[in-house]
């Protein structure tokens, strides 16, 4: 069996008095796709955001490819990393937002080139070549010089995926990548993600698309109330859930 790529261990997180994550444990193996399901407010986004350290954890730790995220261990203590080092770690973690968050004042090509050039100090020419290859891969080779707002939502999200891929990340995190899209545009984005799954990219996908989870996921994780309720292969979790809460949720979304 392949090694663990993402290791989430006993993660707690509160916003003031509101406890959002209560001891989450999760392991994702290299090359596998994990789909996280769960009702709104169950802490799925917060969990993804702790994985690339957009949120700090209160307790527990997260490692990617054996490297602690946001901290350095020395002696028996965890030392918080400086922002500069956190930023460097993030170049290994692609994040795709629900609302795309493309840079509207930059062309599609510049959206893809910006991070490799400024964060990884790649030569611009090389970054542009990679960017054009990735745009081709998401079917948008002809949009390199367009500005993001001129594109449809589905096209924008495909650009956002290409932008995340441009850094050559070890893992890709998707936070409800199709929730902001018109129904007829959902398919084109899921096709791209499915295609990536086929090439062995490690991914964690938060989504409400059960059909997609069934087809693409290696592991389905059901979260509720800030914790993992159950996880396992799609057939087990989706068709034969053990827990009442999972069953209740699935009966609502199916």
């Amino acid at each position, binding site marked *: 069996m392949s090694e663990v790529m993402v290791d989430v261990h006993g993660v707690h997180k509160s916003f003031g008095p509101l406890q959002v994550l209560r001891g989450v444990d999760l392991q994702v193996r290299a090359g596998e796709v994990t789909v996280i399901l769960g009702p709104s407010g169950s802490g799925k986004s917060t969990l993804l955001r702790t994985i690339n350290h*957009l949120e700090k954890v209160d307790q527990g730790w997260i490692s990617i490819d054996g490297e602690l995220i946001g901290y350095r261990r020395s002696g028996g203590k965890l030392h918080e990393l400086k922002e500069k080092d956190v930023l*460097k770690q*993030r*170049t290994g973690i692609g994040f795709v937002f629900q609302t795309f*968050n493309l*840079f509207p004042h930059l*062309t599609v090509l510049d959206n893809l080139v910006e*991070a490799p050039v400024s*964060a990884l100090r790649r030569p611009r020419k090389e970054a542009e070549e990679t960017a054009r290859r990735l745009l081709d891969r998401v079917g948008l080779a002809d949009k390199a010089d367009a500005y993001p707002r001129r594109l449809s939502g589905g096209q924008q999200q495909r650009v956002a995926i290409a932008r995340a891929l441009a850094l050559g990340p070890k893992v890709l995190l998707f936070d409800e990548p199709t929730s902001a899209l018109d129904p007829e545009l959902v398919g084109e984005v899921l096709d791209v993600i499915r295609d990536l799954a086929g090439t062995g990219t490690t991914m964690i996908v938060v989504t409400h698309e059960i059909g997609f989870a069934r087809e693409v996921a290696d592991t389905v994780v059901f979260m509720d109330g800030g914790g993992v309720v159950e996880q396992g292969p799609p057939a087990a979790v989706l068709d034969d859930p053990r827990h009442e809460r999972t069953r209740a949720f699935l009966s609502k979304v199916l």
Partner: protein
Amino acid sequence: MPTTRTAPPGAISPGTAPDVPPAPEALRVVPARHYARWTAAVVVLVLVAQFVHGLATNPVWEWGVFRAYVLSETIVQAVWVTLQLTAYATVLGFLLGTVLAFMRLSRSPVLQTVAWTYIWIFRSIPMIVQLVFWFNLSALYDRLGVGIPFGPVFWSVDSDSLIGTIGAAVIGLTLHQAAYAAEIVRGGVISVDHGQSEAAAALGIPRLRQIRRIVLPQAMRAILPTAGNEIIGLLKGTSVVYVMAIGELFYQVQVVYGRNGRVIPLLLVATAWYVVLTSLLSVAQYYVERRYARGADRTPPPTPLQRARRFVRDLRAAAARRDQPVVPLNPLGESR
């Protein structure tokens, strides 16, 4: 089933539909007549005409004196000083203002408080008070030095020669301008969707680069209109520097009319220059705003220059068509 369930009083009830109207193309449109609007326009035009006539013919304006001075060396020199003061105070004021804005937005309570206090103090002091203060600084400290606090001084300089009168004016204008610029920049930065800096952070883009490349260019769209106002205000605001006897436009004009007593035409000279400079700044602002509108939802309308070019092109095309009257059109409606 009736289409309107609760008809308002006086509405046509579904039962008594009005006569079926004739097809729209059969109806003639009679525009509404705005008699009051026409009367008001005529009155205003008469008043304007009287005013312009008076301006041109009334001897108090002394247009001859105006013509003699408006491009004279003294005045042009003074305009140059005004421009320099404006440029220095704009650039330095907005640089310092941007730093202050990010201090106020930072997570450090010390930086926040310092920036807040600065803005509070410098917005409270009238500019003229501050200028006189800096002007008199050399009287307070006649030597400024570098050394260990409370200890020996390694290097010092006569404060008058370091600052100088122009320097004092630039410092005063800059410090004043920075307080306002800080708030304008801060307003622009918080108008940018938080998802933008979040996406930049998620991509690992270095912090300064996030600000310079992602946040500020987008903030510019909110900053520019207000900043344009500020710079134009500053251009005219430099006239208070006359209290320091600096040869900028307003001071120089006063010197001249102090000598020859031609107050009105010389004030017109100053007015004309301020109008010209403000107009140039407004044009510049128009083009800078367009530049930062790239990627925005709407394509900006063509500039006056682009419109003029298009007009000339259309005229030429029309002329060309007139020259060869029988041009067979291909099925796409294009001439051959």
